[in-house]
């Protein structure tokens, strides 16, 4: 009888563990990257073809676009970040061709099929969507994810796309 109760408790305990919100084992830096058209740049060399991604397109008002990984790429035709005049300064990223269900000239991608929450994506598991931003620096594009108000404090994640030419910075100081 005692044994049966212990077993029951163990089973319930195990079930409870499965029911709890799973914390992704993969570090955020390997789950989040930036998108330029059909190009995904991410610090993860192990993404597989047909893997799902969820993109926050930042061309105008942030919108959610879903897509899949086509495969790793080394083509500047797919990824302008690999053009000769900027390739070396973007070489810390792994590049993939992505097939998106909508348009995303510039955006931030999260691996996997993320369920939208209030029109955004919750990366921290607190039930609230994070804030996704992009802005121009003097010679690149700054992508950031914020847990709170954008441009206040330290971003949850940041990515930098080196353009290799000079432009007018629009990022708030």
């Amino acid at each position, binding site marked *: 009888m005692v044994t049966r109760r212990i077993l029951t408790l163990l089973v319930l305990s195990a079930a409870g563990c499965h029911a709890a919100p799973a914390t992704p084992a993969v570090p955020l830096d390997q789950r989040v990257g930036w998108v330029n058209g059909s190009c995904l740049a991410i610090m993860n060399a192990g993404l597989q073809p047909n893997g799902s991604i969820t993109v926050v397109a930042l061309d105008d008002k942030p919108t959610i676009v879903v897509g899949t990984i086509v495969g790793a790429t080394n083509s500047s035709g797919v990824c302008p970040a690999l053009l000769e005049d*900027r390739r*070396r300064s973007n070489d810390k990223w792994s590049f993939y061709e992505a097939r998106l269900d909508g348009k995303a000239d510039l955006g931030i991608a999260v691996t996997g099929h993320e369920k939208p929450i209030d029109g955004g994506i919750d990366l921290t598991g607190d039930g609230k969507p994070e804030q996704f931003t992009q802005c121009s620096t003097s*010679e690149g594009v700054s992508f950031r994810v914020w847990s709170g108000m954008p441009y206040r404090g330290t971003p949850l994640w940041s990515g930098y796309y080196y353009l290799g030419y000079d432009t007018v910075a629009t990022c708030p100081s």
Partner: protein
Amino acid sequence: MATKSGKSWVTWANEHAVASDKIEDLEASFRTNVKDFIAALEKAGATVVVTETKRSAKRAYLFHWSWKIALGKCKPSDATAMDGVDIQWDHGKDDESKKGAQEMVDGFGLAVPPASTNAPATTSNHIEGKAVDMNITWTGTIKAKDKTGADISITFMADTNANSTLHTVGHTYGVKKLATDAPHWSVDGH
């Protein structure tokens, strides 16, 4: 005879108007400062890879006007001329002029989100030879000499923008960090 704007100009620019990655192409006084700074870092054990120094004014000109015309920010006839770049921006019909410019925007890979309002610049420290883009890496903590000869301990940070000690050492050599663009250092921090 001028050649109409279009993707052939991307090919031309990639042959005749490319950016340099050579320190020797920098403006004289800044060049000396950059050399001294890099020498101090390398002597301390850092690896420095210079990726870009002087940018081509002709390339910047092509970026600027192709961007503005393709996005409808100006009329093709508004484009100014530039010595050594015999390009015909105005094809006679606006849609054809925009098409030619768009081919260049695509070929050059100019990032143009719909909300973007600022064209690529035609003037900059890079164009004047007063800026350098470089990747600086090392392991752990190094002791690098600043311009005064003092040994400064600098711990590696993956985010170069956040490494204020490194910035301070560069500053003593007259090589100043722009904290928004990881590889970028210049004569005045812009």
